[in-house]
């Protein structure tokens, strides 16, 4: 479902060229739980932007559910992000001064789902991440872990092809980080495809497959033989 073939990304700033990704190729199938790992500056954020249709590659091809993501207009990319990708950001990125419920309803509004249906689904997903009694709280009234769970519910809301998490535990305490990973593992068990970018080894250990990136290239791509189960 995700096919990345010879993808390169080159940033130009004046005469200086920075190669962020250099001919990266891999595939991710439906139902996988993949951690993309690498030190800062390795190109993993660039990869995350390309996988998330926030950016397009300089060369190479990226297919998402058989759809080629290249040379598309801003609006076409927005549409793909809306239908196929559930984003979970490091800094949560919830709308400030807006309730958890409304935050989860937002991407569904962009997808043109009716108001009643939006509310019903948002409640369902908030319940799934254990926030049924926090629906009317605004972001500032929630802890980091709770905010990230709202973000996960929001990511699930439009039933995307992949959940794309960028350092999902980067800004929260380790106990809460484990709660997030438990949710990820449960979602994966239900069949959701999860791609997670991180540099923390114990978070990486929760995934079933680990792709190591270094200097814009895939350094190692292997099945995780010792998955850390959170119970």
């Amino acid at each position, binding site marked *: 479902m995700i096919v990345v073939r010879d993808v390169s990304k080159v940033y130009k700033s004046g005469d200086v060229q920075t190669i962020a990704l250099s001919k990266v190729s891999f595939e991710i199938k439906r139902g996988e739980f993949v951690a993309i790992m690498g030190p800062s500056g390795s190109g993993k954020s660039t990869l995350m*932007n390309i996988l*998330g249709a*926030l*950016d397009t590659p300089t060369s190479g091809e990226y297919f998402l559910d058989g759809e080629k993501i290249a040379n598309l207009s*801003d*609006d076409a990319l*927005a*549409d793909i*992000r*809306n*239908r196929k990708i559930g*984003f979970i*950001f490091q800094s949560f*990125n919830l*709308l*400030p*001064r807006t309730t958890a419920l409304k935050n989860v309803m*937002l*991407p569904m*509004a*962009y*997808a*043109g789902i009716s*108001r009643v249906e939006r509310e019903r689904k948002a409640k369902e997903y908030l319940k799934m991440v254990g926030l049924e009694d926090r629906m009317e709280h605004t972001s500032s009234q929630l802890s980091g872990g709770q905010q990230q769970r709202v973000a996960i519910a*929001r990511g699930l809301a*439009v039933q995307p092809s992949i959940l794309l998490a960028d350092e999902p535990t980067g800004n929260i305490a380790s106990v809460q980080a484990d709660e997030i990973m438990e949710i990820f593992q449960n979602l994966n068990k239900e069949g959701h495809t999860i791609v997670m970018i991180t540099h923390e080894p114990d978070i990486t250990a929760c995934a079933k497959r680990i792709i190591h990136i270094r200097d814009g290239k895939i350094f190692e791509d292997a099945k995780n033989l010792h998955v850390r189960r959170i119970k």
Partner: protein
Amino acid sequence: MEFTELLLEALSSISLNKMRTALATLGIVIGTASVIALISLGNSSQKSVENQIQSLGSNLLTVQPGFQSSGGVRGAAGGATSLTYEDAQAILDPSAGISGVKNVSAGLMRRVQVIAGGNNTNTEIAGVTPAYADVHNVNTSSGSFISQADLSNMSKVAVLGPTVASDLFGDNANPVGQTIRVNGQILRIIGVTVSKGGSGFQNQDDMIYVPLTTVQKQLFGVDYVSSISVQAESSDVMTNVENGVGYLLLARHKLSDPSKADFSILSQNDILGAANQITGTLTALLSGIAAISLIVGGIGIMNIMLVTVTERTREIGLRKALGAKKKLIITQFLIESVILTASGGVLGVILGILFSYIISHFINLPFTVSFQSVILSLGVSGMIGIIFGLYPARKAANLQPIEALRYE
């Protein structure tokens, strides 16, 4: 996403920064208020001038003597002594064959010093025929106006305007029966006219009326008149009467070339037109200045919207990442700026109406608010929201989600 949802979202984000919103809107409020106030005051003064001109009498034509040339020196218009009381009588005479003439009055106006006891005043003396009262809507509050007998007998009588009466005899006094002195002649007061509340170019309250013959023969020793007023039966026959009077006077003055006429005929519509042109130009000028302040207000709105876009860069990035299309972001920000300018417009209209009510009350003008100016201001302030909101909204919509999400 439904429009009502966008509207609610815009309202809530506007209400987050009340002070800033209020200050940004103030520019539009002031702009709209001044446009409304100035247009309505302009209309009021136009109406007041119209009323005054109409109060001089309806369907009036005024014949004035032209300039007089002597030895190649051209005198001022109105300086000629060519018009006479006989001209006035000839216009009314059925044998002249001018149809549609209702009444004609002749008058000789001069500025004089009037003395009564220890008081004196400088005012306008009008030597008039009895028809003057009818033609110019002059009524007496006490006593009576100049009669035909007064005219024939060259009676030494006078009718005072209320301003002159109070200047010479004090307020609320009834001077009928008392005497005044003009040019060494003693005139007995037989009436006082009703106040017309006049002001401006011809104040009918500040006048004394004396029989025309008395003024001509007894006071100044002349035999011409300074104006003839012709009242037409209706406004439809004005042109007809104007032509008839013109040809008759040309014939009477033995002139064959109309361009050499020693008189000029001014219809009330000419005066109205000229006055309207002046007030209209003034109103347009002032409204133009007010409109500039509306534009300045619009720039204030644009400034605030640009600040808002910068402040909410992350939010916009997030919305785009979650699938918001450009059009939606533009709509969202346009709604916000239109709410700002439209609410400013509504407030401004209310304030402007209030201002014009207070001002017209203080300077004694009729209070009018034109419906069109209200609709126009509301429309314009809404348009300003769109015009000045478009650039910030487009800026927001064109933000790249990656950059925007990284923005701190």
